């Protein structure tokens, strides 16, 4: 109902609780408090450990085919073995590294490009903005996945580096758009005008004054790009455009598909890599949500009034003889 929504007002908080943390500081505390952030961080930590110390965790190496093929899950092989006799669990553990490398490398490359393009477009405005935005929009509109497939197919079996470059060069447009919007909204903030009036150069203003205020958006952009990279890379490898000898989840999926794992009684071989991809992606997504909430207090879940608060108030009201009917705060 248009009227009802218009007149709902988020009342201004009193000055006491306007004490926000400055961007960047106390990030740890924020992550700890936010449930989504904690979950995402723990997941990511888990995978990081797997990636850094695969040897300590996986009982066997990735490619050793010493075992009987198509074994069901057992104590020796937690998820069973593949059609070629490799231990699925070990494969998963070793595959983590490649996925994480892709995630961070593509995330980094993508974010780097989107920051340069987005911020320059918004700050320079005019013709430069027109050109950069056009370029961004074209990339945004082109369906990237088919495009990536085309490119990867052109290059034949794409190694890790190729995948990283291709994904990175095609995945920045969304972030660039977001950053451009944000900078546009900031551009006329007085502190930027103050820097201009002071006589600062444009490059200085962009790097020193604008970027630090956008750290949360840049981090969110990075997480989004990482998520996209993990999923798309797995997809590319699954189709067979990756290097079939690589040690990664996507390749596992490829081989599982080729050997009809689901039908032939080795379901975990097909399912588990998918689960891992999903979990890693979820960790980035959770962290992304959490960053949104941390940087924008309006999105935070509102703390419910605690029973202790209510009791205290109730007692005080009773002592002051306020009539029962008007003692509110009963609803949670």
């Amino acid at each position, binding site marked *: *109902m*248009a*009227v*009802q929504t*218009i*007149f*709902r*007002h*988020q*009342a*201004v*908080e*009193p*000055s*006491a*609780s306007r004490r926000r943390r400055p961007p960047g500081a106390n990030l740890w505390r924020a992550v700890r408090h936010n449930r989504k952030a904690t979950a995402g961080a723990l997941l990511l930590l888990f995978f990081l450990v797997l990636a850094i110390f695969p040897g300590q965790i996986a009982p066997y190496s990735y490619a050793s085919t010493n075992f009987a093929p198509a074994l069901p899950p057992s104590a020796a092989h937690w998820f069973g073995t593949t059609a070629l006799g490799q231990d699925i669990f070990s494969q998963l553990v070793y595959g983590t590294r490649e996925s994480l490398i892709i995630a961070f490398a593509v995330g980094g490359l993508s974010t780097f490009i989107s920051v340069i393009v987005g911020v320059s477009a918004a700050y320079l405005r005019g013709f430069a903005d027109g050109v950069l935005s056009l370029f961004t929009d074209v990339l945004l509109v082109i369906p990237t996945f088919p495009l990536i497939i085309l490119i990867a197919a052109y290059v034949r079996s794409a190694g890790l580096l190729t995948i990283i470059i291709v994904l990175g060069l095609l995945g920045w447009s969304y972030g660039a758009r977001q950053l451009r919007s944000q900078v546009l909204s900031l551009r006329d903030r007085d502190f930027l005008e103050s820097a201009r009036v002071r006589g600062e150069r444009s490059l200085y203003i962009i790097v020193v004054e604008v970027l630090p205020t956008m750290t949360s958006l840049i981090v969110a952009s990075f997480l989004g790009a990482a998520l996209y990279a993990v999923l798309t890379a797995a997809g590319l490898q699954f189709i067979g455009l990756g290097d079939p000898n690589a040690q990664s989840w996507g390749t596992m999926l490829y081989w599982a598909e080729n050997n009809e794992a689901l039908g032939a009684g080795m379901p975990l071989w097909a399912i588990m890599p998918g689960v891992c991809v999903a979990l890693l992606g979820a960790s980035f997504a959770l962290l992304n949500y959490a960053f949104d909430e941390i940087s924008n207090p309006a999105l935070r879940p*509102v*703390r*419910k*009034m605690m029973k202790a*608060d209510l009791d205290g*108030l109730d007692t*005080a*009201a009773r*002592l*002051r*003889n*306020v*009539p029962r*009917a*008007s*003692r*509110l*705060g009963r609803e949670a």
Partner: protein
Amino acid sequence: MKLRRRSGITDGAARTGALGGPGRFVERVQRLPGTRTDDAILEVRDLSVAYVTDAGLVMAVDRVDLDLARGEFLGVVGESGCGKSTLLFGIAQLLSPPARIVGGSVKFRGSEIAGLSDKQLRHIRWRDYSVVMQSAMNALNPVMTVAAQMRDVCRAHSEMSDLEIRERSAEVLRLVSIDPVHLDSHPHQLSGGMRQRAMIAMALLFTPDLVIMDEPTSALDVVAQRSLMVQIKELQQRLGFAVIFVTHDMSLVSNFSDRLAVMYAGQVAELGGTRQLFDFPLHPYTQGLLEAFPSIRGPKMHLQGIPGQPPDLAQPPPGCRFAPRCAKVTAPCLTIDPPLFDKNGDLVRCLLYKAGRPELGAAIFPSPQDRPGAGPSLSDLGVANPERTNDQ
């Protein structure tokens, strides 16, 4: 000797009967002095609004009492953070989490509206009371025409036909001196002053008994402000609705309001007739505020302003909340949170006007000190006769 009630100067007889025997509590009086008792349209008693924050509960509005008679213009004045907007939303039942009413009652025309659901409120919202917000650009839907928004309102709260709605919309626009041809304009096509007047027109669609206004003029320039105020006053006198007008600009509302409530740190610091408050401000905060306005006529003087800042409401000072900044502070002020005292019909929350000087009138609302087990009472601190009580 605990705090004892004494007869006030005004309404003394009425109040004596209502108060209980010798005891620690001074019970609530039924009417605040200064209001016409027969047709109170709004009674706010002990209203408290709190915000739930990580640091605990912050009491943005602390036990506020207000009465409003039919057709009365009440100005609520204070600076940012004093709780005046929160009070307004608390009265209008427009609070959303993390803010909520945590105590007290709001009676509109005799019936309690605090705690009612949206569904229950729909019957009286807009028909009996309406709200004008601070910035029309934030409150008016930018993609709908004025007529469409008025139609929304009418349909939500009544069964009028489309033709009737159109006629009524044109009528209210004419009331605020806007040509009805603007019914089909979008808000951004109207000037700032016109937008505000369109908001007021919307608030008057059902000629409510009470219109609540939250700084409707602060986004306007001084000339448009003046003409809008004159318009509001005219409409009020013509249609007879009561107004609660919240603003930070005391002088703006001074020519138009019947009574004025000055708020500080979530409490009502002073409440009284406008003229009386301006001519004889009692609370040191009100005095400071009045002195902070440079005047355009009259002799030029050096002005001071009020040093310091309002207190952090998460940890309000133990005594009077204005004490840290008060030029007339005394020792008891630092530990006692004063109740409202009555002086000549003007209610003021300041120990300078405490009973103990009987001619100054009684404490009307109980002080926190009178809770059993709470801290020392006034007399326990040896304040039988406070040292500095200036006559104002």
